[in-house]
């Protein structure tokens, strides 16, 4: 906890000017505002009764009071502005760093963490840190200044009663901390249930059409209501326990108030000689200050809960920031040109250590060859691509490009040699043109259109409301096939030296696919390319076919040779014509 707080403070460092100014302005603003009760008291003393009003004194005090109020107000305002700068600036830095980190962590980390959870860290966790920082810090500091200030004023009036007040303050803290621990557990249960509820809602409403297709509504409602009731129950407890803290501390303050009043009054009539005699007016002032003194303790207990929450959110954010990035490789060789000879040598790999996936995998692709990978689902075809582009690193063995181990090259230069189209399409929110030009942001409109035409996407794009300037997103109603065409257009535009097509045309209808195949032929001419596909017609013309099963290559060769062998591939090929 302490370490996390210090770490948050480190993020405030660029804004330490704001921090100092905030503290200074709060100090001045709050101190001046503490003068107000004394001045009002003095002013009242100037107006004793009929015909007995000291107008000179009254005017003087009124002027001082007005000045104190105005100056205090201005400083409070300035301190508010500075604290905004501090909190919003810190949050911006933190969020920028976190989002930048996402671009650097290994894919294994992204694949292994729930998407919604990561978004929550970027959005709501950081918001809570901001609230905790902004409100927490402002209230904490104001509270401390108020406590110190009122303490000083009380000490000037009566040291002994002040000691009584100070001795009683731990009760306030004790009660507050009891309530905090009590509500902490309910809050934890509440947030766990809320998370579960969010998951269920997202899943069920997201799959509402399936719920309806299976007439599953009643059971879905039942599941929802069970969880909903539990959540309602937990929220009630959490909210009630936490809302106890205000009345309870207020009660303790009331006790302090009563104690001060009794002791002061008894002192005044001489029953308690050690207190010393106090005038009625001074007792009234003292009571007013002791009231002000205890108030911040109320707020501080709330602030502590807020800060605790912020700290646990900060821990979640720092957890991401502490994930090792892909190591810096800027000192490595930048691949500028290569002929495209690729080799896998004795590669071993597994996603989870106990389940080996790829073992002893070796293959060689000559410059300009077209390599097809065939095999049943889950046999490791896509993993080969993960390794080739170094999204994942091999456990042992080595992959070389032009004889150079890929680990001796910068990742960026290695990846930019390849054009990749995956089965899982990726469309981001932006115009059609921006989506196509993703790999070449400075492409002209002519180039973009040419690429779209090559991918047979031009036709449907022109029918969109604003053509190439239509804003699209993954959920904006494009069919899976249309999205694939856009992803293909991306590659057509960048014209990379090597190609990877992983089920690139699986959702495109056959007539269009035929045409795209022709475009791919042209694109692949003279380039090393990898093709993963189910449609064996796509694969037949490959120079070299790898047949994979359970992470191993079980057959390899060209189509004719494999058909002659009459093995697994021949079987697979025949089955597509069977009825």
């Amino acid at each position, binding site marked *: 906890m302490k370490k996390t707080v210090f770490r948050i403070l480190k993020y405030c460092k660029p804004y330490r000017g704001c921090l100092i100014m905030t503290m200074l302005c709060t100090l001045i603003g709050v101190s001046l505002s503490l003068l107000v009760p004394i001045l009002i008291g003095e002013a009242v003393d100037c107006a004793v009764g009929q015909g007995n009003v000291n107008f000179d004194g009254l005017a003087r005090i009124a002027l001082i009071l007005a000045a104190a109020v105005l100056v205090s107000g201005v400083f409070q305002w300035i301190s508010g502005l500075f604290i*905004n700068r501090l909190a919003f600036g810190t949050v911006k830095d933190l969020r920028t760093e976190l989002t930048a980190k996402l671009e650097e962590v290994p894919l294994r980390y992204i694949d292994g963490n729930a998407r919604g959870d990561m978004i929550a860290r970027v959005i709501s966790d950081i918001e809570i840190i901001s609230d905790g920082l902004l409100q927490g810090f402002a209230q904490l500091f104001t509270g401390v200044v108020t406590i110190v200030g009122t303490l000083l004023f009380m000490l000037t009036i009566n040291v002994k009663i002040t000691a009584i007040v100070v001795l009683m303050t731990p009760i306030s803290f004790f009660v507050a901390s009891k309530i905090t621990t009590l509500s902490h557990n309910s809050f934890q249960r509440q947030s766990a249930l809320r998370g579960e509820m969010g998951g269920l809602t997202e899943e069920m409403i997201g799959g509402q059409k399936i719920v309806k297709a299976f*007439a599953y509504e009643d059971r879905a409602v039942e599941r929802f209501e069970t969880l909903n009731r539990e959540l309602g129950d937990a929220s009630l407890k959490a909210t009630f326990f936490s809302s106890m803290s205000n009345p309870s501390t*207020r009660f303790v303050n009331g006790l302090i108030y009563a104690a001060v009043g009794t002791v002061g009054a008894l002192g005044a009539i001489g029953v308690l000689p050690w207190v010393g005699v106090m005038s009625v007016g001074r007792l009234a002032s003292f*009571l007013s200050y002791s009231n002000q003194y205890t108030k911040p303790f109320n707020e501080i207990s709330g602030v502590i809960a807020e800060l605790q929450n912020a700290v646990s959110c900060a821990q979640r954010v720092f957890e991401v920031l502490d994930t090792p990035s892909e190591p810096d490789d800027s000192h490595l060789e930048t691949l500028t040109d290569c002929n495209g000879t690729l080799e896998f040598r004795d590669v071993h790999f597994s996603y989870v250590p106990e389940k080996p996936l790829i073992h002893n995998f070796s293959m060689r692709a000559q410059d300009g060859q077209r390599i097809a990978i065939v095999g049943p689902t889950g046999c490791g075809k896509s993993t080969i691509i993960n390794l080739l582009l170094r999204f994942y690193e091999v456990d042992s063995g080595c992959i070389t490009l032009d004889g150079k181990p890929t680990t001796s090259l910068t990742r960026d230069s290695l990846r930019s040699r390849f054009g990749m189209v995956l089965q899982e399409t990726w469309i981001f929110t932006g115009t059609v043109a921006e989506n196509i030009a993703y790999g070449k942001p400075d492409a002209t409109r002519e180039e973009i259109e040419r690429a779209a035409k090559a991918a047979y996407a031009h036709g449907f794009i022109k029918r969109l409301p604003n053509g190439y300037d239509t804003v699209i997103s993954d959920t904006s109603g494009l069919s899976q096939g249309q999205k694939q065409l856009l992803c293909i257009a991306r590659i057509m535009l960048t014209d990379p030296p090597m190609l990877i097509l992983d089920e690139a045309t699986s959702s495109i209808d056959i007539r269009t696919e035929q045409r795209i195949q022709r475009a791919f032929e042209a694109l692949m001419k003279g380039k090393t390319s990898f093709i993963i596909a189910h449609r064996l017609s796509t694969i037949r013309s490959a120079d070299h076919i790898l047949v994979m099963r359970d992470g191993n290559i079980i057959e390899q060769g060209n189509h004719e040779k494999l058909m002659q062998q009459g093995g697994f591939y021949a079987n697979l090929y025949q089955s597509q014509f069977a009825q």
Partner: protein
Amino acid sequence: MQHLLRFLKPYRKELILGPFFKLLEAIFELIVPVVMAKIIDNGIANGDGAYIGKMCGLIVLLGVCGLGFALTCQYFAAKCAFGFGTDLRSAIYRHINTLSHTEIDRFGTSTLINRITADASGAQTAVNMFIRLAVRAPFLIIGSIVMALLIDVKLSLIFLIIAPIVGLLLYFVMNRTIPMYGANQKKLDSIARRTGENLDGMRVIRAFSRQKQEKAEFAQECEDLERSMLAVGKISAVLNPLTFMIMNLGIVAVIWFGGIQIDSGSLSQGDLTAFANYMTQILLAMVVMANLIVILTKGQASALRVHEVLNTPTSMENGQAQPDAQQEEAISFSHVDFAYAGAGDNSLDDITFTLKKGQTLGIIGGTGSGKSTLANLIPRFYDATKGEIRVFGKPVQDYDMHSLRRMIGVVPQKAVLFTGTIAENLRWADENASDAQLQRAMEIAQAADFVGKTQYGMQTHLVQGGRNLSGGQKQRLTIARALAGNPEILILDDSMSALDYATDLALRTALREKCSSMTTIMISQRATSLMGADLILVMDDGRCVGQGTHAQLLETCEEYREIYDSQMQ
């Protein structure tokens, strides 16, 4: 809020008693200074130690009562608010389940999720704060003003001037900032969207080496957000200091004019002190009121959005008829047209065909040609705009929707599974299906093999809707899920695209052999998968350009021949 009042009805008791106890607490709180004044006036003046002790006991007693009242109020507030929120969420969810696909499309999934989570809890918070604050703050404002008027009418004029000024200030600041907060929220949503898209597309981003640009765009958005947050902050930072200044300048005025009145003998010194205290109280209460208004305004907006969902009737009337699967004619379409709500053009145009029980219908055609739309009309996910669809002899509109859909097994194009075990997923269609039934369904769907190989078999837990499965495995499980309900009609909407040919063939063979009485509709891109069908529809841009068996279509339908040839070369 008035739209959701009916959800508060069961909590009428809490809704009334909560504020009542809060009021008691506030009154008790106001009595304490009076008692203290008595201590000073009577106890000290007379030197009566016993009286002082007694009165102090009274203060402690008042404190205990106040604590009790406050806790009672908080409890009632929480009980009412969370009871209300829980009922509301249930009602929304129940209502969503009555909506048809048309309304679900119109709202969109993310909107519905927001309504049931964020908006429901916004309304809930409003109720909670309403009970806790709505009585106390106005009570203090009105009470103080009345007390001030009782003491001195002329001096009270200062109140009547200052209160509207503070009111205007509050109104101005809120009026300016609330829309700005809305704009900030949009910016934050945009960052959330970008984060999601980045996580989804990380492979593409890295393949194109665009990390630097993505970082820059993120940084740009974060900076944008900071700038507009600072802009709102600038305005709202004015509120508290300015209220503080106006309030205390009011007190200065009270003191000055009060001094004149005291001099003329129409006001006492104690009255002046009281006046200053009331001034403080009023303005503090006004700030609380302002915050309450913000919460209630937000709650009101949430309530309206919730109401919009609750008030949307389903566009489909439920029928009464129960299915009779003995009819020989399983499905018939007669001159069916269909257009999506809000779309200009028909997505289906004049579709007519008849399918007998136990037959297989194949649908083939290009992307966007209307294949899935056609299949969606059979379980009545949408109603045809023109023409008639009959299932087992009766128009689909006549059926009780649940009975109709229980009879139909649907395998959607996108393989969606749900968190839970494989067995739980397979029991979606039939809650009471035996393990043997599930096993049989998995065997037909060619899923038994890989499920059997996992450590826990059917009890394997699917993480986040099956992220731990490959695409092909998910597809096979969705097929098994549909089969586990022993449907009369099976709809496979291009559900085998991720299967290799050998598995595809094994699956079709198993379906033919083990489910011969089942009527099957199979949408596919592969002509070979459909060759054995009893009837094949060739779709093109919403129209049916050819129907018949494989052999007939090869003769008569040019589009079909083209597709077939391209795959057979």
